[in-house]
């Protein structure tokens, strides 16, 4: 028979599970919830809690050791559930809902039809693919629970993306959501299999690195076992590989504007090359130089056709500036330093192998380069003439909604090359801070954002109308 301390812990755990359930229940019933995804998520939280309460009630108390182990794991499981409950506290972290976010949800569904997405704001100044909810639930719950029953009707993937609250209004910066969707694509494509194979190939190099570091007595490394070192290096490689592939997928989702968006967002706060002062960024993220070079190496395909416009137009200039920037980044790179050059080489090999694996595969979520070449310049011209870039003429009296990616590209193009905002995000090795009054620039950006957001909204609603019309057999004709 178990001792009294373990027995006494059982009702406490049950109470905690019931408290989490009570917290989730109003959201599950749709009280104070504007986003149906939150209600759906809360409904499953309630189901999970119910199952846990049953499990706790039925705990076998005959074996002390077993009971105490069960209680320990259930305690940590409930801790994880309590953390998930924070998703329902909307006051702290509002969930964004707007027509202009619809395309992101569409892309996620094109990656996997049984996927749902919540976009939240957070105080931290970073974009992140925070969690895949179902995976978190499944990892935390005891295997005795029937997950199949609990998650009946729940999406196969339920993604939560966080974006900085301070940038939530900024449609241009929402471009970076493409990178977060890239993480989801990485997962669905099972690219970790490539990392396993290439890490295995480089085990002798990793061992050499360890021995070298051990001999030199490098702080922090000498106290590690080789297994810990191997785990550390594998973690760095896997993380950097995932980041680079997510960038590459982002380029395929939104086109060349991802380069500009990444630069505009990243470089004011970070230098091109991380140092150890950048903490985890230094270890787990490729440097911005590496990220830009990976993108610039692949951006060409969008510009190859003559459809992008004649010589001397802004599209040609954009393409040339990107090439010049690529050359400048290559020429100004710091000399490689061991041991990170070894890690970088392994990561590069992973990226090349993944690119080769994915070459030629059809991606329903990708932005068609011909649409880019056909739409971006006319949309840019509309912006210059202060006409909303929401549609394009396709006949004498007919218009068609522009694709959302083309609007984003035209907007970034205008933002980058319009001297009124003087950002010059493309033409200088480092973002140049101008002497112009930052407040004036901020107001100009707010106004520009409003203009682009409404244009995007119009294009999206127009497209939705056409899609519905096509399914209604001429009712609207």
């Amino acid at each position, binding site marked *: 028979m178990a001792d009294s301390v373990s027995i006494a812990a059982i009702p406490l755990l049950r109470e905690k599970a019931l408290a989490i359930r009570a917290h989730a229940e109003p959201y599950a019933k749709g009280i104070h919830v504007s986003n149906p995804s939150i209600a759906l998520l809360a409904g499953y939280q309630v189901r999970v809690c119910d199952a846990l309460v049953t499990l706790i009630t039925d705990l076998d108390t005959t074996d002390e050791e*077993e009971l105490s*182990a*069960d209680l*320990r*794991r259930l305690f*940590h*499981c409930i*801790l*994880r559930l309590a*953390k998930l409950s924070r998703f329902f506290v909307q006051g702290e972290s509002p969930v964004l809902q707007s027509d202009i976010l619809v395309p992101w949800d569409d892309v996620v569904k094109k990656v996997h039809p049984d996927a749902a997405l919540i976009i939240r704001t957070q105080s931290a100044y970073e974009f992140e693919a925070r*969690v895949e909810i179902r*995976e*978190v639930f*499944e*990892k*935390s*719950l*005891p*295997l*005795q629970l029937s997950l199949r029953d609990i998650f009946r009707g729940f999406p196969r993937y339920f993604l939560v993306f966080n974006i900085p609250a301070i940038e939530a209004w900024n449609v241009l910066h929402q471009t970076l959501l493409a990178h977060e969707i890239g993480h989801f694509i990485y997962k669905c494509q*099972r690219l*970790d*299999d490539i*990392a*396993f*194979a290439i*890490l*295995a190939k480089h*085990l002798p190099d990793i061992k050499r690195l360890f021995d070298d570091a051990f001999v030199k007595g490098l702080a922090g490394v000498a106290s590690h076992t080789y*297994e*810990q070192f*191997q*785990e550390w290096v*594998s*973690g760095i*490689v*896997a*993380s950097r590989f995932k980041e680079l592939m997510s960038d590459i997928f982002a380029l395929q989702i939104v086109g060349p504007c991802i380069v500009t968006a990444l630069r505009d967002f990243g470089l004011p706060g970070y230098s091109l090359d991380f140092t150890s002062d950048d903490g985890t960024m230094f270890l787990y993220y490729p440097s911005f130089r590496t990220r830009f070079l990976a993108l610039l190496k692949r951006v060409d395909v969008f510009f190859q056709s003559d459809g992008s416009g004649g010589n001397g137009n802004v599209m040609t200039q954009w393409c040339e500036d990107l090439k010049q920037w690529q050359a400048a980044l290559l020429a100004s790179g710091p000399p490689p330093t061991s041991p990170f050059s070894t890690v970088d080489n392994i990561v590069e090999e992973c990226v090349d192998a993944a690119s080769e694996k994915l070459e030629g595969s059809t991606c329903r979520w990708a932005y068609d380069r011909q649409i880019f070449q056909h739409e971006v310049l006319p949309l840019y011209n509309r912006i210059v003439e202060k006409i909303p870039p929401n549609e394009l003429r396709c006949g004498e009296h007919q218009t068609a909604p522009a694709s959302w990616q083309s609007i984003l590209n035209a907007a970034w193009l205008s933002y980058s090359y319009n001297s009124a905002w003087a950002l010059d995000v493309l033409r200088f090795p480092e973002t140049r801070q101008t002497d112009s009054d930052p407040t004036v620039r901020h107001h100009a950006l707010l106004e520009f954002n409003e203009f682009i957001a409404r244009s995007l909204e119009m294009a999206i609603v127009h497209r939705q109308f056409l899609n519905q019309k096509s399914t209604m057999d001429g009712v609207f004709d």
Partner: protein
Amino acid sequence: MSEFERSDILELANIASAVNKTLRQYERAHTLSNHRHILARGRNLIGYILAGSLRSEPEVVERLLPEGADVYESVRAYRYAKEVWTRGQDSPLDDAQFFTTLHAYAACLDQIESRKPFDEWSPAQVRDLSGFTHFLRELERLLSGKLNSRHAASLIQESA
């Protein structure tokens, strides 16, 4: 320790516990019902460890982990398993012996799955089964300890 790492450790601890309970039940009753899912997770656990070693045949890992594995999660599983494996040994054993033992553990799961009568198990296979339950219990202990110490560290950090 990141939130993701905690989830991974909790998942491994949950698998180790459930598989251990199921195997002990089998040792006692020589029969099982509704066990398919738990045994599959047991195979997953061995798959994580083998994949995380970075030295295993991809085909073997693929069989144990048909849905694929996450690099970081697997290399961590390998380290924890190796820690348990080397803990009780008088002299250090190499990975080859470790892998042979893991394969023997996976074979135990296959035998139960295929409903091979227990009295047809060889003495070596019975020993493997017993070794497997011991390994799982120790692994779960180690992982629970890690979760507890990380939780305590978070509490100290939050109250500092």
